[in-house]
């Protein structure tokens, strides 16, 4: 059920104010520019636009997102897959869609087939074990953090990750929680520009 009409109809203006690029303050504009540059997108994601009214919070959240997801030693694709997987299991539609696209920017859009079990697919032996273990463990860390044990850390270690990498991977857990929580609360919908990408 997709439309290409005015963005505002897809949002809930009664929740957060959506600030487009043209309407943003200098400070917010700078942050918007940085997100475009860092994410290699010619537009600003809704996830940022509905924080455009509070430069301080936007700045903090962007900093967290940037340093955890877009920087570091672990391959970006793996991190996107982790976020995609955790968001899917949690049922956060916005994040699942956006991060699915990031993880697989060359292929078609994600299937809407509810029977499609992503985790099973990602468990296919074709994907290196390092990925499979990382996705499994960090998803658990995000969705059931109290159930994380030393054994989970050991599993990551056995898969070949060193301390630095494990710390970076675990950081994706609380990142995805932030992403999902905010997306759910704000009620944002998939960006128009991404809709156009659907074949």
């Amino acid at each position, binding site marked *: 059920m997709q439309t290409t009409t005015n963005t505002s109809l897809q949002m809930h203006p009664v929740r957060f104010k959506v600030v487009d690029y043209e309407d943003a303050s200098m400070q917010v504009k700078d942050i918007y520019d940085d997100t475009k540059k860092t994410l290699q997108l010619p537009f600003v994601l809704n996830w940022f636009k509905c924080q455009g009214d509070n430069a301080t919070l936007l700045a903090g959240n962007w900093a967290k997102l940037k340093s955890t997801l877009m920087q570091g030693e672990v391959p970006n694709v793996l991190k996107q897959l982790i976020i995609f997987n955790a968001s899917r299991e949690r049922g956060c539609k916005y994040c699942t869609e956006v991060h699915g696209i990031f993880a697989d920017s060359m292929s078609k859009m994600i299937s809407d087939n509810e029977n499609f079990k992503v985790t099973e697919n990602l468990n296919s032996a074709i*994907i290196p074990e390092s990925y499979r273990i990382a996705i499994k463990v960090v998803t658990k860390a995000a969705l059931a953090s109290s159930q994380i044990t030393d054994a989970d850390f050991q599993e990551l270690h056995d898969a070949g990750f060193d301390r630095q990498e494990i710390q970076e991977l675990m950081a994706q857990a609380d990142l995805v929680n932030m992403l999902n929580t905010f997306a759910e609360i704000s009620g944002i919908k998939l960006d128009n520009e991404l809709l156009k990408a659907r074949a």
Partner: protein
Amino acid sequence: MDISSIKYRITYDAFSKFSASISKAEDIETLAEIVHKKSKYLFDYKLLRIAINTREKVTVLNFTAETAIYCDDNPSLYAYELELLDNQIPFCRKQEEKIFDAQVVQVTNMNPLLWGWHFQYNNLNVCASILADDSKKFVKSDIEILTLLVDAVITKFKELQFKKELEHKNQNLKEAFLLIEKKNIEISRIVDNQKTIIATRTRELLRKNYKLLKISKLNAHNVREPLSRILGIVEIIDHLTTEELHSEALAYLKESAQELDCTLQQIIEMSTKEIDNFALE
């Protein structure tokens, strides 16, 4: 998600990062570390082993999940590697026999498989092998990536070897240059010394020459004296009386002739002595 496109995306991303990291490596230890860290994003294995054979030596890189080991003290090769070097035919077979050092990797009982390939790079013979099992499965579609990895590693390895060789040669050249400089100084000193010796000898020779010429002049004089007296007598002999001839002239002639003979004998004796001295020197 389309599984093959995920695989493609993952592999492409991981390999380009791997390539970029390797190019910055300054030594073999760093190279091994990078391979260890990044290879887990490319494919699964229990043991990845790269054996590099040159004419001079054998270098081996061993990678497991926990460790990266680099041996360049001519470690011995396994039988299968020697086989590979010989026939160069890649293989994949069951590997139950525990041929590997238990501290490095354990051969499990979960369908262990040993894969082996031979790569030829000019004068480098490389054996790459993978030990895998059900817990860490290496699949056919990973072979291409493994080949690219080995290519990248060997290229860098060769570059690092060249660098080492160059440094070594430069060091040798530097030492040779210093030696040459030292020798040059020595040579200069010897030459200067020779010049001094030559100058001294020349002076000596000149002095000797002068002495000889003086002696020669003296000899000539001494010879001429009595001779001129003989000539003198001859000049006036027609104007002498028989009396004068017999009483004085003949006696004078005899005297002068004898003196001449004596002088010449002296000269001969002296010259002979000098020549003998000369020959002895």
